[in-house]
């Protein structure tokens, strides 16, 4: 009986599997094949072995793009990871206006990414008339060439990415905070623990699982950063914000070299798989310890 039910379930699952396989997995397989081919999409593709990878590694921009991507990821961790957590914890301590705060915190996520990025491009306009510079000018700072300076461009992009993505993380943290056992807080309060001690000794340890999941998602997301450098700086100035994904995009759509673009995509995917595996390994050992 159970076997029959399973068989019937499989039949119903089949369309979904077919669709998922065709639209999600087949492109990945094709991309892997394309990494070893040269094609102009008109004539039959030609097998070229490792030539695409060799061409890729001969590109002096690759190390720059890889380092820039790591730099973006590191900055995202520094700014983008603690900030939503702090905001969520602060919001959970609010006695009034919690709903309004949640709406305000989530609002940037509702704005389409390209719109928010273009908006920030205006904010970061150089000179005294740029919105950010005008605000800083009130306290006697600047003006700074935010996107026009090789040093400031990447941190500026991280600010934009954090602003547009933090809302989701805040909501997840808020949801997780509701799961923290209230009796622990009561016990801590009875023991005379301050707000900071309650956060440090009760809230954070209880939320470790969620924090670790979001950390992984953020690393995977940050390593694939594209919209911000593509729309705001096009990789400039002087290659300061060229990322791996921007390179993939250029190889594929600007230079029409799908082989090398696929080769780089596969390498990036492998790195992400390794990151995920290491992370899973670590979290397993942490949770068992």
């Amino acid at each position, binding site marked *: 009986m159970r076997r029959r039910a399973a068989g019937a379930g499989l039949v119903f699952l089949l369309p979904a599997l077919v669709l998922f396989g065709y639209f999600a997995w087949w492109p990945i397989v094709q991309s892997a094949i394309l990494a070893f081919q040269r094609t102009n999409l008109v004539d039959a593709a030609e097998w070229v072995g490792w030539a695409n990878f060799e061409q890729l590694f001969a590109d*002096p921009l690759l190390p720059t793009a890889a380092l820039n991507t790591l730099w973006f990821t590191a900055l995202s961790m520094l700014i983008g990871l603690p900030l939503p957590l702090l905001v969520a914890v602060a919001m959970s301590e609010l006695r009034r206006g919690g709903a309004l705060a949640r709406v305000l915190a989530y609002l940037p996520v509702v704005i389409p990414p390209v719109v928010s990025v273009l908006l920030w491009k205006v904010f970061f306009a150089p000179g005294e008339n740029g919105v950010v510079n005008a605000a800083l000018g009130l306290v006697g700072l600047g003006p700074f060439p935010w996107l026009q300076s090789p040093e400031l461009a990447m941190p500026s992009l991280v600010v934009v990415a954090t602003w547009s993505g933090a809302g989701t993380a805040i909501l997840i943290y808020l949801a997780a905070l509701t799961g923290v056992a209230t009796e622990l807080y009561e016990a801590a309060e009875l023991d005379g623990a301050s707000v900071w001690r309650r956060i440090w000794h009760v809230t954070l340890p209880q939320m470790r699982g969620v924090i670790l999941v979001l950390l992984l998602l953020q690393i995977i997301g940050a390593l694939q950063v594209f919209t911000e450098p593509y729309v705001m700086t096009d990789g400039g100035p002087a290659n300061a914000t060229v990322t791996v994904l921007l390179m993939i995009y250029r190889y594929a759509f600007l230079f029409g070299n799908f082989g090398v673009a696929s080769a780089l995509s596969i390498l990036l995917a492998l790195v992400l798989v390794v990151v995920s595996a290491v992370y899973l390994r670590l979290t397993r050992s942490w949770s068992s310890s």
Partner: protein
Amino acid sequence: MHTRQRRIVGATAAIALVAGLAACAAPAGEEDDGVVVITVMGMPAATNTAALELFQQQVAEFEELNPDIRVVGSDVPWDAKTFAARLAGGSAPTLLRVPLTEPPSLIERGQVADIAAEASELDSFEELNPRVMAFLERDDAVYGLPEKSYAFGLVYNRALFEEAGLDPDQPPTTWDEVREAAKQISDATGKTGFGEISTNNSGGWHLTGYTYSNGGSMIEPGTDGAYTASFNDDAARDVLEWWKQTRWTDDSLGDNVLGKQEDMVAAFAAGEVGMWVSAPPDLYPQFINAGGDPEIYGAGAMPQGGADATLAGATVLMVNAKASAEERDAAVKWMDFRALRPNYDPEVAAAYAEVSAEDGLPVGVPVLPIFSEEKYAEIQEAIAEYVNVEVANFDPYVASLAAFEYVPEPLVASQEIYAALDPIVQAVLTDPNADIEQLLDDAEARVNTILEQAQG
């Protein structure tokens, strides 16, 4: 029917439905009862009612003249990002309408067809301006026909010129004069004296155009025919030095240097920029569209560093390499009917001009002729009564067109080369201590690698 059987039938039906939907995504039929169907880019958008109406009339007229051809218009503009995917999926148009930056790479990748046989049968083919056709012919092959062409020139704001005490009828013609005028505009008005763009390959594109005006070149073929970088010399070095001085010594280049052409059009239309380099005729409709005042639009000669040369470009019509011989033939007939005739047949030109003027579109913008000077004069005479543009404001630009040599964009890997040059332009414009020698050395090595791979 048992429940289980019903389930299987249901699931099979669902799969069949999905498969059916997938099959619907196949491209339009190529031939149907002997009728050749071609999809053509260049149909005006639905919002441009008069031009669209004219297009539809032309299609009807064309189909009447050629009952074995059916034309399906597409108002989707050229987009490098989607073209490759559409080509792979079999849904790329038969007739492509592309800016002249694209043909070198499309030709190299074999994605466009040789139409020499079909084109040479056209009445007007022999009369096409050889300076324009030079970009589209390789050996004996012809890869496209021009729809319109342009050459780089100086676009300037006549009002800001007057405000700064400069004569708007005498725009600067050398790079030294441009630098002086830029400083004067910037000092007198507080606006950007000379605007520059440097992203999305526009930095490399401009460096190329400016280098040509200094007598330099970007790539040169060796004795074996293989191209190598040739820009690591004084011609390009002087451009970079000029930028450095205008940006950092004079402070007249503005501080917003990390933009592309669209950004500069908006700033220029808003009256924030005194001068910049672009293709004046091509830019004019965009300028009007962005709310620019037609009175202030000035077009001057491409500033020179002694070479009397300018980078030339065009909007070009090409045929998809996947097109059959019949489709190729039909596409070339359509190119002649729609694009060449208005520049060749005075009657057609007048009809075009009338409709455009009615719709409020610019008529009479002086362009680089795609046929002979005589033919151009004949056409100008035919459309004279519909001209609604301040033609006199283009006089300095028009006067330069006959005098200059037109230099094409790099024939191999043009977009890759531009992409490799963007960073060095950006470095000079964003870093006062940029080492020009080092930048040129690095760029030369990079471009040589690109050329090696492209020609390998």
